[in-house]
């Protein structure tokens, strides 16, 4: 009577490309139908994801056995998801890919939401690739994209919080449970802790700032991706194309928003500017100029306030 029911459908995680793409650990049971999980640095044990973003590339490839494999990239504010649609995919999915590939070729902007299975591949040399196999997908508009961004940020914030709480706890299921870690994260956090050790959360925090900014409609979203198709270059592109007056405006805007009365500390200011794609060094220089111009002052060392 307590027999485990038939294999249940795996739940889907709303997840940004950076968290998924940063993973290098997988788990798969020995049974033929045991699900594959990718374990992220934040302890999410992912079999299925809900992802969204812009299609950046979608190309057909002939595989060695003559089948067609469509490979594509989906950009969200944190980076790229790689996905592939092969002959194994549903008829609907294959038809959609052909249709979308044509649109991409014609230069149309395509924003998608996708429910996809996680894939994990390790080459003989040890290089690890994570990718997605879409199950269902649909074209969406900006409002649904924003909804997804908020859900993804919410998930990420929660996982960061629990990951941090878990660091001070004993690495046993019981200790984590007692420490208030929810059941669905316990196993993943233990595995992640063993595999990744201490992790740097800074990149995820920056992702959240970017995502929330876009959801709030503050900065132009990833709708205008760089042509080179690489995340790093977006930032540098923006830096080079952003003239310095704009950067000063951004800094002043940040101080307005963040100032709770005591001013804004140097690091928070530069991190936030970086989240908007401004290089720290350039920001620092701009901040110096603002000080010299008298637009901002430092009531105490390292804390900046708008001059009234």
């Amino acid at each position, binding site marked *: *009577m*307590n*027999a485990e*029911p*038939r294999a*249940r*459908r*795996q*739940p*889907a*995680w*709303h997840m940004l490309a950076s968290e998924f793409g940063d993973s290098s650990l997988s788990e798969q049971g020995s049974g033929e139908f045991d699900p594959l999980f990718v374990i992220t640095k934040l302890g999410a044990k992912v079999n*299925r994801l*809900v992802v*969204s973003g812009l299609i950046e590339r979608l190309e057909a490839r002939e595989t060695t056995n003559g089948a067609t494999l469509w490979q594509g990239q989906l950009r969200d504010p944190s980076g790229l998801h790689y996905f592939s649609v092969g002959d194994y995919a*549903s*008829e*609907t999915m294959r*038809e*959609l890919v052909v249709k979308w590939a044509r649109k991409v070729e014609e230069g149309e902007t395509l924003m998608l*939401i996708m*429910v996809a299975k996680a894939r994990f591949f390790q080459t003989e040399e040890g290089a690890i690739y994570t990718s997605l196999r879409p*199950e*269902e*997908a*649909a*074209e*969406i508009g900006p*409002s*649904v994209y*924003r*909804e*997804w*961004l*908020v*859900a993804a*940020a*919410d*998930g990420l*914030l929660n996982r960061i*919080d629990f990951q941090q709480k878990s660091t001070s706890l004993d690495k046993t299921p019981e200790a984590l449970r007692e420490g208030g870690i*929810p059941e*669905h994260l316990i196993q993943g956090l233990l595995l992640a802790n063993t595999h990744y050790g201490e992790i740097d959360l800074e990149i995820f*925090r920056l992702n*959240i*700032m970017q*995502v*929330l900014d876009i*959801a*709030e*409609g503050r900065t132009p979203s990833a709708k205008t991706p760089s042509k080179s198709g690489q995340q790093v270059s977006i930032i540098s592109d923006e830096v080079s194309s952003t003239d310095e007056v704009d950067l000063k405006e951004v800094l002043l805007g940040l101080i307005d*928003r*963040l100032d709770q009365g005591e001013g804004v500390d140097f690091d*928070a200011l530069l991190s*936030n500017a970086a989240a908007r794609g401004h290089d720290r060094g350039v920001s620092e220089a701009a901040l110096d100029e603002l000080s010299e111009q008298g637009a901002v002052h430092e009531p105490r060392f390292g804390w900046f306030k708008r001059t009234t």
Partner: protein
Amino acid sequence: MSAEYDIHVQEVLKQVPDADPDKIVDAFIRYEKDFLIPPADAIRAVLRRFQGESAPSSTSSTGQSSSSSQRQSLPVKKVERFSELAADDKNVEIEVEIITHNARTTMVRGEEKTVPYGLLEDMPWEEGGESTRWQFKDWGNSPNLHPGAIVRLEGVSVNEYQGQMSLNINQSSGVIILREGTRTVSKPGEPVDIGTIKNEGTITIVGRLLASRQDKIHRKDGTGSIDVVRGRLADDTGAIGFLSWEPFEHEIGSLLKIENSQVRCFRDTPELNFGSGTKIEIFHDSNFASTDDLAATSICKIEDLRDGASDIDIIIEFQKMVKRSFTGKDGEEKSVWSGDVADPTGRCRSSIWSEPPFDINALPITVRVRGARVRAWQGVPDITIDDASQIEVMAATPWGDDIDLANNLVEVDLSDLVSGPSRVGIKTIGTVVSVREDSGIIKRCPECRRVLRDGSCFNHGEQDGNPDVRIRFVLDDGRSTLSLFVNKESTVQLLSMTEQQIVTAIEKDGQVEFVQMIRENFLGRNISASGRSIVDDNGAMLLADDVSIIESDSALAATELRAKWGVV
């Protein structure tokens, strides 16, 4: 001696040297003639019979070399602990204490036979030593087995079933009493909290008697009935129903310690069984919760109801009721009053099998029900009330007038819904992670409303089928998933399309395109769905009659996230 049996007779004699060869031949002849069993197949049965006949002599004189050593060619395996035994050990000798002993009558090859079963403990002479308990079955129904007795078992065999080891005391086994069963069992299991009882097994509890009544169980084969007592016990962690196969005459309110009660699960509900091996005694604890307190806390709520629960007390509001009359098997005209009931935790159904003590045309009405049973149909609990005396009409609702139960939808977290029982009148929220390809127009079997596959019903074969409209989604909250079935009215409303428009759209663009259209509108969206849930081994389903997209202001939600987590 008949030559054709010679080889088999020799085989039997090898094992039982003092048996009469002529009698062995007679036995083989009888098996072959009367039961059509050839000697090669009958040898086990014959062997068992002659071993059994020689057994009594061995029980009385174990110390001597005569019978026990000769009786079986298998070497005697003499052990002190169960842990020394392997699954295929036979002819085992061990000294044990009988912990429980339940006589049970079973049908063995069409013959009624008493085969007692119970628990044994090894190392019986060690006070406070580490003893192991095993189950046993006594195929010989030995008169020497009594709870508390210490015996030496000879010629018993080990049985392994699904990884569980037990001892078989065979008809030929010897049972020698070493100490009479007068002593009470020194180490009963520690009492467990009633609220924690989930799985089958033998347990000890301390609980207060809340309800008890005589009942009869009718044998299915019509050979009469067994008198039993049913009732309910509670402690401050919960309440549980019981069934006593032995006389049970304690007063309501008594505090009882019950040792060696068997937990059996009836449908989804655990229940205590008291048999001859169960020891029940009055327990004294002045701090134990009083009957009134327990009765108050053991009042059920609709959300807690499980199929098979009995003797439950509950306060419900009757909302709608109909009387149905039918002719029973015995030709007697019978009536049942059934209807929809609710409390603040949900809705379900109720049936009353006698004239209700209120006007069914003047509903809603709030009642307190005592000692009701719960049955479930398609997962929806039905509170079954056998007699009007179980119903007490209440002057006012305990939950106040501000809750409008008629339209009350209880919001349930999706994961809780998936892991809980089937429920009615619930509402939940989740993300659409799949739109199934068979959404749109479907054909249903005219007999059973089952969806036709390739024009054919699972139960009724090929059918023309009646068209119906529905959408099948998968909803997900990041931890659990459920299948959401959107009915016709709600689909029409959700898509802003009439049934005819849906038919036309599918004819024009095709099924695939139609489903993709639904995806473009719903995939990844948060929706709210209300209706009833069915939860079983295949997962959870929500049959929804109202589904809507949750429109949210993403900018506001993002700002709220910032505030909540202190993101600047």
